[in-house]
């Protein structure tokens, strides 16, 4: 058993090394990617303008700055892009290479994703710093329990990964799986808290939105980071995240297992 764990650790390290080297080779396109995911910063400009004449709900101008900078960074920390890779590999037959290796293609994707995160963070942190300086030099309010935040970020990353793998696996059956992901992304922008803090939704609607996986993958960790989720809300939010992770993890596993059996190994 420990022998298997040792091999898993060695493989993880090897994928990490090779992926990090690849990420460094792609550093320019990575920067472009970070820049194209600055949507929360656009929201920041909008909302801090609106809040200039007085708070919106319980968000004053500095609160918006903290919220959206946190949203921008957390999105970078928990990002996944497996859906593009996986659906491309399924359509082109490049998945063959991964399937022939004596290691799980899913593990490979997960580690590869994780390995690129430090580069993304290194690129994103200065941007976040500059925005904070320009918007008033505000430091984050009390980040709450760091352990809870770390756990929440890990769950958000896993949730994103599960969604990406689930939708990516649809490429085993349909050619338009990335178009389906665009639909998901559209909902995500509105419902995750990337465009507007979900607590500002009208009562009734807010409760529904905050129970969805979108909020679990972004809004909740952001609120945790800026100290807006405390006490029972922390436990509740983490439990909800774990629930969505389990749901999408199970869905991804089923779709992957069935997909591989339906795979036609296209291309020679």
């Amino acid at each position, binding site marked *: 058993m420990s022998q298997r764990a040792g091999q898993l650790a060695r493989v993880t390290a090897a994928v990490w090394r090779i992926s990090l080297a690849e990420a460094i080779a792609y550093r320019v396109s990575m920067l472009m990617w970070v820049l194209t995911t600055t949507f929360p910063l656009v929201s920041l400009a909008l909302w801090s303008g609106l809040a200039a004449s007085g708070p919106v709900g319980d968000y004053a101008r500095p609160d918006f700055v903290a919220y959206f900078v946190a949203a921008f960074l957390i999105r970078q920390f928990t990002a996944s892009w497996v859906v593009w890779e996986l659906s491309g590999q399924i359509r082109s037959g490049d998945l*063959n290479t991964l399937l022939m290796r004596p*290691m799980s293609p899913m593990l490979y994707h997960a580690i590869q994703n994780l390995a690129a995160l430090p580069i993304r963070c290194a690129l994103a942190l200065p941007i976040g710093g500059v925005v904070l300086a320009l918007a008033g030099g505000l430091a984050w309010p009390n980040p709450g329990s760091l352990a809870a935040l770390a756990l929440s970020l890990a769950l958000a990353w896993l949730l994103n990964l599960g969604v990406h793998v689930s939708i990516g696996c649809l490429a085993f059956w349909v050619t338009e799986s990335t178009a389906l992901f665009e639909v998901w992304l559209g909902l995500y922008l509105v419902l995750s808290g990337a465009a507007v803090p979900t607590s500002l939704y009208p009562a009734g609607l807010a409760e529904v939105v905050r129970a969805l996986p979108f909020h679990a993958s972004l809004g909740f960790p952001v609120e945790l980071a800026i100290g807006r989720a405390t006490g029972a809300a922390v436990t509740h939010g983490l439990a909800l995240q774990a629930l969505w992770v389990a749901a999408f993890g199970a869905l991804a596993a089923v779709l992957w297992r069935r997909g591989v059996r339906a795979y036609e190994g296209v*291309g020679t």
Partner: protein
Amino acid sequence: MTAAAAMVRVEGLCKRFSVPRREAGLRAALRALVRREYRVVEAVRDLEFSLAPGERVGFLGPNGAGKTTTLKMLAGLIVPSAGRVEVAGFTPSDRRPEFLRRVSLVMGQKRQLSWDLPAIDNFEFNRVVYEIDPVHYKRRLEELTALLDVGEVMRRPVRQLSLGERMKCELVAALLHGPQVLFLDEPTIGLDVSMQLGIREFIRRYNAEHGATVILTSHYMEDVAALCPRILVIDGGRLRFDGSIEALRRQIRPLRRVSVRAAALPDDPTAMGRVVLREGGRLVLDVAPERVPEVVGALVALPEAQDLAVHDAPLEEVMRALFGREEAADLGGAIGHAR
């Protein structure tokens, strides 16, 4: 060959794909949105064969004949619709790590190495993933890089390599873990002649030294003829022939080509066989095998007879006959076993 000793065993193997079907044009496209029609394509039908450890076997057949589909089922990439496959004692589609560590697949049209990294980084990655013992790895890497002459090449990013250099690196990556079964799908496609020869020679040598079973598909008849003592002809998803290239040649083009140069040629050579060429002092005939001694005897007796030669039909002709649809039927339903 007993079943227990077989490295590859295939019984009643079938693969059906359902592909969406629609007519050309916008109207058909719109109709397909509402109701998609599927057509079942039988890519592989009822294949049956077994390969001994260390054999080199070539799959021959026209495009779309089912060669690559068969190869992918043997490698475990696609799941058979019916029948049984066993490779090195495993069911390939289970994709058990123990199985994957015993086989390797090289695809001429697909790169498996990471584009932006030097090949040596890819090799090192394989060392870990395939759990290759470091001492073993070092020895093997030295051996393979020396044989394929990629000592310098492997330190440059893969994207900067020529097609031939890249293919050599692909082969190193595929062989580092010492697979018992090597699947090669069009390994020399797009390569120049000298590179083709080099790769061919390498594969033969590797097989001789390590005893790995080699299964090859190639459009280049030359590759298959030079590398594989045993040929499986697959056409329309069925096994049409199983035997040596000579046996295949004789089955498709049974006549021997006899040529001679002489001061005077016989008046009526058609009695000896079919006249291919009669020009100046040169005569070329296609002769039935059992009549060859008699015809050779008669030709030798011609005045100033020289350059007498007996050949099998040229390979290209066999290939044309084999892949030309109407003539492919000449193989008949019975599978040849003339090995």
